[in-house]
């Protein structure tokens, strides 16, 4: 039985109630992780490198969304109905655009000069780390170092119950937006000409270029797509948890874990990895203190890398989704 068993028995009643609540929160977090993880996985596919500065793309999207909401909602009462939907749409657009722009700038400044020279991999990593540090500290300088909460574009009431656990508006929004984005992206990569180009470069860049795929353009577009999703995730995160200049670090580390968990380079893997990580991490609160949540997520990363480095669905570079 052991101490843990006793603990479970004693808390069985609360646990049953808490379980679904934690589960719902976990799914919402997991969708966010998945949206960020897609950025890692796409870039890994075409360049074979971890975009360390992806956390700052997320942060950029968060700040863009924050300023948009502040301009439109301000300190007044949160709007309702169609106005809410419109505002969220504008916020996602703003976050996604900011993320895409930031991703493009990153690719041009921190990666392309190195790619031209065919620099060793270590150089890319260091350059990306430099970019990340530069960006979030610049954000801290321009927008202050203290965390702030975001004006709410909707009334955060309980929408419905899942097994007695309340599901808040915030979670509903994340579910809807997340699902739309994942399905859209999945279609884009597996069906469109653009997606074929990205997959071709991921499979074999040289051959793809011989077949008429413009590599530079494809890489740039990959960064834009990943950046847009990361930025949109940044906005959603900011809506629920506020913004601060270091906000990108932990979610991005977890999103990377999610990408590895699902199998890096594998789009569906990134989404599933995000969900599994989000739920698992959220439920781990039952066993460990909340302060150690990050340790749990990180433990999963190390474990996956050691036991099954190809992830749950396996590394898939260039195959359909």
């Amino acid at each position, binding site marked *: 039985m052991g101490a843990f068993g006793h603990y479970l028995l004693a808390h069985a009643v609360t646990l049953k109630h808490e379980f679904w609540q934690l589960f719902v929160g976990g799914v919402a977090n997991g969708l966010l992780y998945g949206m960020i993880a897609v950025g890692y996985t796409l870039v890994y596919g075409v360049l074979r*490198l*971890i975009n*360390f500065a992806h956390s700052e793309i997320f942060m950029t999207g968060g700040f863009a969304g924050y*300023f948009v909401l502040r301009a439109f909602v301000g300190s007044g009462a949160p709007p309702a109905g169609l106005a809410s939907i419109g505002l969220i749409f504008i916020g996602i657009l703003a976050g996604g655009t900011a993320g895409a722009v930031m991703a493009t700038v990153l690719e*041009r*400044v*921190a990666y*392309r*000069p*190195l*790619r*031209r*020279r*065919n*620099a*060793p*991999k*270590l*150089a*890319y*990593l*260091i*350059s990306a*780390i*430099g*970019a*990340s*540090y*530069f*960006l979030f*500290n*610049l954000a*801290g*300088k*321009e*927008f*202050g*170092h*203290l965390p*702030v909460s975001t004006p709410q574009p909707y009334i955060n009431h309980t929408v419905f119950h899942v097994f007695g656990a309340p599901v808040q508006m915030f979670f509903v929004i994340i579910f809807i937006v997340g699902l739309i984005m994942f399905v859209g992206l999945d279609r884009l990569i597996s069906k469109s000409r653009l997606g074929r180009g990205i997959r071709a470069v991921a499979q074999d*860049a*040289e051959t793809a*270029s011989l077949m008429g795929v413009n*590599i*530079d353009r494809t890489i740039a577009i990959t960064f834009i797509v990943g950046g847009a999703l990361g930025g949109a995730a940044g906005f959603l995160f900011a809506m629920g948890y506020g913004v601060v200049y270091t906000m990108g*670090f932990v979610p991005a*580390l977890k999103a*990377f874990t999610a990408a*590895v968990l699902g199998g890096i380079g594998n789009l569906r893997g990134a989404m599933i990895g995000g969900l599994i990580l989000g739920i698992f991490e959220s439920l781990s609160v039952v066993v460990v*203190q909340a*302060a*150690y949540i*990050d*340790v749990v997520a*990180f433990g999963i*990363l*190390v474990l996956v*890398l*050691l036991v099954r*480095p190809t992830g749950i669905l396996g590394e898939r570079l260039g195959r359909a989704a």
Partner: protein
Amino acid sequence: MKVLFAKIAVRRLFVTISVVAIIELMTGPAGSNSAPVSGFKGSFVESSSFFGLFRAQRWIVFFGLALIAWVVASFWINQGTQIRSRVRQVIAVPRKATEKSFVRRGALAALLFVAIILPHVETAPFWQAAMVEQIAVYVLLAIGLNVVVGFAGLLDLGFVAFYAIGAYTTAWVTGALPTPALFHHPLNPFWAIPIAIAIVMAAGVLLGAPTLRLRGDYLAIVTLGFGEIVTIFANNLYGITGGSLGTKQIPHPSLDVGPIKYHWGITPVPYYYLTLVFVVLFIIVFSLLERSRVGRSWTAIREDEVAAESVGINPLKYKVMAFAIGAASAGFAGVITASQLFFIFPSSFTLLFSINILVLVILGGMGSIAGVVLGAVLIQTASSYLLHSPPSGYQSQDLYMYLGALLIVMMIFRPAGLIPSRRRKREIMLAEVDHEGHLDEVLGGDDL
């Protein structure tokens, strides 16, 4: 004049202006959350004083600078070949001289002499403290990280963990933690040195053995997480580490062996000499290691792991060794910091710190001990100076912004560092030349 109107030159003008605009933003005043545009406004459209000499609109001054830089760069790239070859000729004489061993030894002796008399020349209390806390300790950390990143080619982003473990071990053996001390009666920090180094090396092996099988980029992210975890544990294990409130008071070290009796007090200079002795020691050991069988194995693994394995080198063994050996100097740095500063807090061991050390290694030159020492001295002197007399608009957190920018700039323009390790430079060049032939055809287009 024709040089300035070519298509590439116009593009270069755009790049120059962008770079200067970024510098303008970096050196401008800070904004705040309630006034997010004020930083941008203050950086671009307001006037400020330049070095106390004159006041002018910032954008005019910086735009002027951009133009000058552009003209100089354009002519330099087009007609600089002669100037460059002339410069190379002038440099060739001292460069050749450094290859002679007696010149090298003489230079080293001179540098050591400067390091020894430095505290007597610069007697300002701020700088004496900075020499230990900001420079000597960082030199130690940089030569330690150099073993991992430079010699073995492993990107370790959690180096701060070893520093923290060293510091907390000191607190542990001196009885400054809430948990009972390691031995029955608390030791003084001097005897913590071997214990801390041993524990930190063990931690290096423990962390390294499972994770060093991973590919380079995975390793970077795992070490990043490890550094973060050490901070989380230090912050939350109140019963063991004292949590975010930090430790109890850590005593100063003292030495009492036979005729030698010495007590390190509150003044920084004795710590400076203690650290200097260990810096010299570590430099000697590490440079011997580099030229030993172990060092050659590191080079082999770094250059081609599969080939190294096929000639009978066990990559994992040597990588773990690099981790543990590199960690040793960080552990010692932790002892010095803990015993000099009385208290230690988890907040001093953050990820930012790891990156700071990485910048020292990258600027100086991965794999070059002389380089990383120079890098550490340069950057840490500059950052101490910024701490001592901050220019207007500068906040202490901005340091990391500059360091981040420096990393990108180094990777683009001088990946091998200020004083490159000859071997490392050759590797980078080989990798770049290797694919050059068809790379141009594949990627096409001109460089940004």
